């Protein structure tokens, strides 16, 4: 029985994927007070036909770690993050689902903190936060910090969502909670992550936060971009009038 399913959406993460998988094995496989022989988990890679050969790397990793541990559920073309979770969820066997980026900005060691926190009060959702004590970022200049804090403040005031890090995408969900939330969320990009937590708050799911450090990606390129600020504001207003 697999207890935790880790969803890794990838698009052109050929360099990062082996590293993140190795780190997951290292940190979740070690003996802790949670379990003497490591956490029971599977990794589900949802690759959207990356032209850089990410899937080729997945196959190599399956040879090393086994195709039970590393499951490849590819899609034809780049269809976005939100639907990638829906797709991965269909195949996930775990009781809990962990979502994280595959670009090494989310360090697997924090998953142990997520699991500990979840067990404390049987929370429905545990979310990583860069904004609380002991959280933080690396590689952000002043401008990015101002935009991040400003955008977050406006969302806090308007939506009162009961969570400090709305746009992060490093979280643990109970499986059925994620299923229900993901079906009711329609936004894209950063707003999708925000909508998930806002709807969770309105539905009275219980939520806890764990501090995480966010290290900007070393390899590859960020796929979000362009009119991020405009779409953030539009998405925020949509949530303001609908939740």
């Amino acid at each position: 029985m697999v207890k935790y399913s880790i969803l890794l959406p990838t698009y052109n993460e050929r360099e990062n994927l082996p590293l993140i998988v190795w780190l997951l094995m290292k940190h979740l496989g070690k003996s802790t007070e949670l379990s003497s022989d490591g956490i029971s988990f599977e990794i589900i890679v949802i690759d959207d036909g990356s032209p850089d050969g990410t899937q080729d790397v997945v196959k190599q990793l399956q040879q090393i770690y086994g195709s039970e541990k590393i499951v490849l559920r590819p899609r034809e073309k780049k269809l976005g993050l939100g639907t990638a979770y829906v797709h991965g969820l269909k195949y996930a066997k775990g009781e809990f689902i962990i979502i994280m980026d595959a670009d090494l900005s989310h360090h697997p060691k924090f998953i142990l903190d997520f699991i500990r926190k979840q067990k404390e009060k049987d929370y429905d959702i545990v979310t990583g936060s860069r904004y609380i004590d002991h959280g933080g970022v690396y590689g952000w200049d002043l401008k990015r910090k101002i935009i991040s804090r400003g955008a977050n403040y406006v969302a806090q005031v308007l939506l009162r969502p009961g969570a400090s890090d709305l746009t992060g995408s490093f979280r643990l969900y109970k499986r059925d909670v994620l299923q229900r939330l993901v079906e009711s969320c329609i936004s894209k990009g950063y707003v999708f992550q925000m909508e998930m937590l806002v709807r969770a708050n309105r539905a009275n799911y219980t939520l806890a936060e764990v501090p995480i450090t966010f290290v900007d990606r070393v390899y590859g390129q960020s796929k979000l971009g362009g009119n991020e600020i405009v779409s953030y504001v539009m998405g925020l207003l949509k949530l303001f009038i609908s939740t």
Partner: protein
Amino acid sequence: MIKAVEWAIGGVVAVAIWSGMLLNLSSLDLDAFEKHLVLYVPLYAVISFGLISLGIICYRVATFRDCPEAAEELQHEIEAAKEDLRKMGLKF
């Protein structure tokens, strides 16, 4: 309740209280300073909300923690991972 509706109700209540005070301004026994306050209270409210918000954001930017130690630890782990994965036969 939908947040926009909450805000709208709050706004209507605030405007009602303020206009009630304005309408009864002559019957309230106020000195010139108090009258000025009543007249301009929405403006002062908006200004102070803006200033407080600005203060909070500045404070949060200033205390936004940089974590070079996390980046450094990751870098070491990446090196170890590459070496180990190569040994296990992965072709990068």
